[in-house]
């Protein structure tokens, strides 16, 4: 099943749900910075792959679309997580030479790897119900 863009989906969330995601994201980013400050870049780096927004995100999907859709959302996040490793390795490879540009390139690589991964897993079969 091909991914479908439905802009009305953006109207599902209430204002406080948007605020919740913003606050969650902000707090986790501050937390990741504090961890790196206290324990150094090794432990700090681990927390860059901390599942920050996923619990809130899954809870909201369950609330709006039901349990089975929350399961599908978590399955999709698995592919995003695998692509995140590609993001990190791209940063490792490029940051010495390209500086800030490495982050932008790694972001594009993450998106490409995620979409490619999704098509490889779900693009051909009806494994996703919606």
């Amino acid at each position, binding site marked *: 099943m091909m991914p479908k863009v439905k802009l009305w989906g953006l109207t599902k969330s209430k204002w406080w749900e948007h605020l919740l995601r913003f606050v969650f994201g902000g707090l986790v980013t501050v937390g990741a910075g504090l961890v790196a400050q206290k324990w150094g870049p090794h432990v700090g780096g681990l927390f860059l792959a901390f599942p920050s927004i996923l619990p809130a995100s899954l809870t909201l999907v369950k609330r709006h679309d039901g349990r089975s859709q929350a399961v599908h959302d978590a399955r999709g996040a698995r592919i995003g997580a695998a692509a995140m490793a590609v993001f990190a390795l791209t940063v490792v490879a490029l940051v010495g030479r390209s500086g800030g540009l490495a982050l932008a390139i790694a*972001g594009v690589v993450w998106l490409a790897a995620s979409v490619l991964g999704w098509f490889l897993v779900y693009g051909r079969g009806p494994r996703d119900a919606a």
Partner: protein
Amino acid sequence: MVVEMIVRFALGGALVWLFSLIGEAFETKTFSGLFGAAPSVAIATLGLALGKKGAEYVGTEARMMAFACVALFAYTSACALIAQKKGMPVWLGAALSYAVWLALALGPYAIARKAGLFG
């Protein structure tokens, strides 16, 4: 210090919100799920660290992040499994799955550190 925290909070919050918004625009939930594991916190944190600490520091953080992605993959798999259990609230399953992330991210690190791999 306070200003840096505020910048960190605003940048991280905005990126996480933006990626979640992109995810919500897709009806196919496995596809929108991709954006639940977007590197939003990493982009904000590494971007700020690059300006302050330099490329070597950012390279070290990114290398460790790549290892922790194994833990993130296991975490999302645990969430997908537990979310199928009808009696279990989804938020509780996601919260319990943090144990998987902590074990797989911090466990190997603690062992490697004890073995002297991090000096």
